[in-house]
């Protein structure tokens, strides 16, 4: 008794139980002795129910189906015209038998080859550190910025203040850069410089951008083929986007 109830859990479903019963009795799927199978099936179900086991509704549905077929086979029928009431069931059992057979083959294949492992692409992190840079690249980049901005603002008439040597703070610029980018999101680097008027301001912005990049407050968003590693004048056409949008105010550059 105990063995039987224990075994109901082992079946994948009613079809599995049915198939097992048919195979155990060495019956022909196309000619299932429905009365015998139905009785054996009910034995399993009743047993499981008697032991307070949860008999899933699928098993109950199949039980009623079997009884329906059993009752139909008892009725006289026109052999020529009517379909064997067992045929649909036989088809389902057969289809399941095939799936089960395939799953057994699969188990073998999997145990043989399941150990083939692959890694995630993510395990190789793209190297974002700037390497082998020459300081002259920086001065060239700055020169490029200055000349570009100068070219666009050549015609601008500028008032020359009487008070000379206004102190320009890179920290201030860094804050204004973050603020600016907070409003606009990613911006082309050159745009940041265009807002500035004097060379001193631009240098401060330049320093601020470098510092923000270094502290990872902002990041360079390059195109697909962009060589992030090269901080050449080209790099200035890259979009720069805010990485961490948090407090601008606690940002300090040691000057």
């Amino acid at each position, binding site marked *: 008794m105990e063995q039987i109830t224990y075994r109901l859990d082992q079946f*994948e*479903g*009613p*079809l*599995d139980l049915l198939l097992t019963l048919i195979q155990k009795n060495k019956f*022909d*799927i*196309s*000619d299932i002795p429905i009365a015998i199978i139905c009785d054996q099936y009910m034995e399993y179900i009743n047993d499981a129910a008697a032991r307070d086991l949860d008999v*899933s509704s*699928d098993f109950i549905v*199949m039980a009623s189906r079997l009884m329906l077929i059993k009752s139909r086979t008892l009725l006289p029928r026109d052999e020529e015209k009517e379909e*064997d009431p067992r*045929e649909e069931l*036989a*088809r*389902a059992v*057969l*289809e*399941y*038998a*095939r*799936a*089960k*057979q*395939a*799953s*057994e*083959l*699969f*188990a073998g*294949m*999997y145990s*043989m*080859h*399941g*150990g*083939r*492992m*692959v*890694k*995630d*692409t993510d*395990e*190789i992190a793209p190297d974002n550190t700037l390497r082998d840079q020459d300081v002259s690249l920086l001065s060239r980049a700055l020169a490029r910025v200055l000349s570009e901005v100068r070219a666009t603002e050549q015609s601008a008439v500028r008032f020359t203040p009487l008070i000379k040597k206004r102190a320009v703070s890179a920290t201030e610029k860094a804050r204004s850069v973050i603020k600016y980018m907070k409003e606009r999101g990613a911006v082309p680097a050159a745009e940041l410089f265009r807002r500035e008027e004097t060379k001193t301001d631009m240098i401060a912005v330049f320093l601020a951008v470098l510092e923000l990049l270094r502290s990872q407050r902002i990041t360079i968003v390059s195109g697909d083929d962009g060589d992030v590693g090269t901080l050449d004048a080209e790099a200035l056409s890259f979009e720069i986007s805010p990485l961490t949008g948090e407090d601008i105010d606690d940002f300090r550059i040691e000057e």
Partner: protein
Amino acid sequence: MTSGSKNETLMIDGIGEARDAEETAELCRSLEAILFAAGHPVTYEKLSAVLGIPAYEVRELVKCVMPRYNAEDSDRGIMLLAFDDSCQLCTKEQYAPLIKEALGIRRGGNLSASSLEVLAIIAYNQPCTRSYVDMVRGVDSGYVVSSLTEKGLIEQRGRLDVPGRPILYGTTETFLRVFGISSTDELPAVSKSDDNAPGGDDAVSADELL
């Protein structure tokens, strides 16, 4: 298949330009580097674009270098898998226990009997719907289907054009890899008609059941 000798000059068949040994070796190294870095299968199309040779030559290249990885006497711990549209590097199955120990992977990787059943039904009938799987198994397979999807063994393949537009499922390249085949054409034959098939009926097709 060519022999796996390492110094052998690789001849890429086909109409493409003749390549000298160094060019070919460079292609092999590039291929290996890309596949290693990718991890996932890389399509021949992509490789063709990156390596600058036609896709059919990429296929030839893969076929040629394969024995160096996969041959019995190869001195590699990784193998090259070629699928219908892509190829991939993976570790050889026999080293799984070592890898697991080295990486501290305790367990996992087992497939339950129900998972294998669902996988088998989908593999042989793909693309097919979950209700078809339910029907063949006679039980609800929703949980198993989602867990197989999570494991990357099956994937969605669009929707069936019937009321409700049910999702169609098919097997993935991960499935092919861990079951040791390179295409679903290589699935083992399952007897179409059992010795006791009912009324000589053919397999019930998905359309019929739906």
